[in-house]
């Protein structure tokens, strides 16, 4: 049986160069579950994902993947770990010079000697799962934003990875496409019960649909980590605003920069010919 891939952050500081984005965070994203990482724009969600993938090293602390410290692994073991991950990037990150089928087949054509007919069969199966079987020979430039994301998901899933990481899977999608993406992730979870899925998002509707556990990032740390029900019942003012989609409280309204002098506005309108 495939082991479960817990992702554990132990007193981790994340950032780039001298810039610390998340400091001293400790949290476990449990294996075999769907975890959602939430937070405001610029809150460190994508940074957290890039560190799980191994694209950036933490400033301090350890990130354990299935019990192994990702950044202490020998090169060969790190590469082996990466082959067990599927990653859906924000815009799909499809290679423009390859068709959808060639993009999806990439991990197989580069790492295996499978006959091309077998690769094609696997690729068409994955594309069918994401509803793109009829677009296998299209180029990414011929697809809509939602289709690119679904093609990116097919590529992320082509090796049946035990760990699937999604960066903003529903951002920029219309409500129907976003709901379809949620269904796809739930369908994957149903097909592969041991699969660990981490979805970085700020789409509350999507998170409510798919997540078993939730981590909320705020002010360079973790504002909440736990079940979705716990988040819905939280009393913390930031979490409440996040859940209720309400703006910051009064206080900032007095900021003089929020006021534009009537003369200035009139001058601008005259210049624009309004």
């Amino acid at each position, binding site marked *: 049986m495939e082991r479960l891939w817990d992702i554990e952050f132990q007193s981790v500081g994340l950032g780039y160069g001298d810039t610390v984005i998340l400091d001293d965070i400790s949290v476990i994203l449990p294996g075999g579950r769907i975890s959602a990482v939430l937070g405001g724009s610029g809150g460190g969600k994508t940074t957290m994902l890039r560190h799980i993938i191994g694209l950036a090293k933490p400033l301090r602390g350890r990130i354990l993947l299935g019990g192994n410290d990702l950044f202490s692994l020998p090169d060969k073991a790190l590469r082996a770990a990466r*082959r067990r991950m599927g990653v859906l990037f924000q815009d799909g990150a499809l290679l*423009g010079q390859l068709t959808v089928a060639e993009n999806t087949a990439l991990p197989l054509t*580069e790492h295996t000697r499978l006959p091309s007919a077998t690769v094609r069969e696997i690729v068409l199966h994955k594309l069918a799962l994401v509803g793109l079987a009829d677009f296998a020979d299209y180029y990414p430039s011929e697809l809509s934003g939602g289709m690119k994301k679904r093609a990116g998901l097919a590529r992320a899933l082509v090796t049946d990875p035990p760990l699937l990481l999604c960066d903003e899977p529903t951002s920029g999608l219309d409500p129907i496409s976003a709901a379809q993406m949620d269904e796809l992730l739930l369908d994957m979870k149903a097909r592969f019960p041991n699969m660990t899925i981490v979805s970085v998002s700020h789409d509350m509707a999507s998170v409510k649909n798919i997540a078993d556990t939730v981590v909320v990032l705020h002010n360079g740390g973790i504002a909440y980590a736990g079940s979705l029900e716990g988040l819905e019942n939280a009393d913390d003012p930031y979490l409440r605003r996040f859940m209720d989609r309400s703006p910051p409280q009064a206080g900032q309204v007095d900021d003089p920069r929020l006021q534009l002098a009537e003369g200035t506005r009139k001058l601008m309108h005259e210049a624009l010919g309004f």
Partner: protein
Amino acid sequence: MSDNTNAPLPNSAASLLRALGRPGVLFLCETGAMGIFLARGIMRMFSSRTQIPKILRQVRVIGAGSMFLIVFIGLFTGMVLGLQGYYTLSMFGAEGFLGSAVALSLVRELAPVLTAIMVTGRAGSAMAAEIGVMRIGDQIDALEVMDIDPMAYLVAPRITAALITFPLLTSIFSTVGILGGYATGVLMLGMSGGVYFSRIGSSVRWADVSGCLGKSLVFALIVVAVCCCKGYFAHMRKDGMGAEAVGNATTSAVVLSCILLLAADYALTSFLL
């Protein structure tokens, strides 16, 4: 433990760095980084059994895609050389040496240099832009997380393809240029065709041809190293982000390639003569 970072530089090194100044030192650092980048790409040239389709694609992009341009530029370069050479040599009653003048100018200097500059403008800029767009569009990160080495996937096939196509394009440039000189000297100005070609045969030595091909190989490495490196690190540029960074990377790739090509040409010519 001694702190080597505070140790004074030897006088000769310090005076050299002072003479270069900050821009000179930065230029040396950048050139060194590109040398390391190129070495990493060369080490991966034979790393994957899936290289051949990628190499063929790049041969088409760099070679076949530049063919028309090279023929066009080569023809007119040869025609201008024929015209200028004929009137200059006729001042000394030596117009019979036109074939030698045209062929030696082309084979020794103009063909490798102009071919490299033209390919830089056409294919090199495309390399920098394509890799830059892949970098800012997360495509290179996607390759890394699929455990596909971006150097092997993107850079190594371009190095191989450039090493194949540059000598071929340079040879085509030389041949078409010689025919251009023939068109002006023989067909337009009435010189003997036999004399034109016999002078070429007697003056162009194998050392000239091998030097020409050797230069084209060095130029191929320079163009690929600079253009791929600039695109690959487009996201780290301080003079812009996103599309602006790709644009700036492309511009600086073309400018730096041309500077390094001309500097390398001088160094190689000094060595070969």
